[in-house]
């Protein structure tokens, strides 16, 4: 999940998650970076499917899309399954070498 490797972008994402809906201006406040930079991060987050936008009048509201995290579930659960199977194999191997 390279999209979230950047600490500023991660912080932006976490603020979106923490809010129900939030605008670029609100996200920029207290972020320590420019509104342009925040917009860039939002673009990446949108491309990664982590946030969705809703235009309303002159504002655009952003909210988190938890479904965008499915890839992480996939990779992690792969290893969850993998290691449990390895433990079962280890149990069998130990019975063989140390009856």
């Amino acid at each position, binding site marked *: 999940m390279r999209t*979230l490797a950047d600490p500023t972008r991660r912080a932006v994402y976490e603020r979106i998650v*923490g809010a129900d809906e939030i605008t670029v201006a609100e996200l920029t406040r207290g972020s320590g970076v420019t509104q342009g930079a925040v917009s860039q991060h939002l673009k990446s987050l949108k491309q990664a499917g982590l946030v969705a936008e809703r235009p309303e009048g002159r504002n655009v509201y952003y909210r988190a899309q*938890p479904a965008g995290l499915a890839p*992480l579930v996939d990779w*992690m659960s792969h*290893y969850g399954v*993998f290691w449990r199977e390895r*433990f079962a*194999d280890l*149990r069998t191997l130990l019975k063989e070498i140390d009856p």
Partner: protein
Amino acid sequence: MNDAALEPVTQDIVVDEVFPHSPETIWKTLTDGELMARWIMPPSGFEPVVGKRFTFSTMPAGEWDGVIHCQVLEVVPNQRFVYAWKGGHEDNVGYGSRLETVVTWTLSKAGEGTRLRLVHSGFVLPKNDTAYQNMSEGWSKVMHNLDAVAAEQEASSTRH
């Protein structure tokens, strides 16, 4: 934003089981290349020496050749064995995406046997409840139906 807020949030996989064998016997299965091959995967260039780099070959995905790059980080005989576990590629989503993790094995006496604890740590996640909720829902779903990837992995690992 202070630095603490910028720390990446990570999630671990933990498997913890008791085996009716001595720590010494289990240690051998963890740190002997030939035995590792019989229950994890055949390692390449493995030696249980701090700093030693070795690899595992798994199923490729997209730009990733399927090679897991490991490096021994800690060796405490019969107690603790730690190695880095890195692989994947930035362009992949899900299986095969970028992975920079650490595998820690801890052995401790448990009655007549040994408790073996695996912690596979460093899966980077955003820090929030919604995400975790979705993670754990997805998690339990996937845990209940072994996915095809795991099955293929199973088929490709050495059997005796």
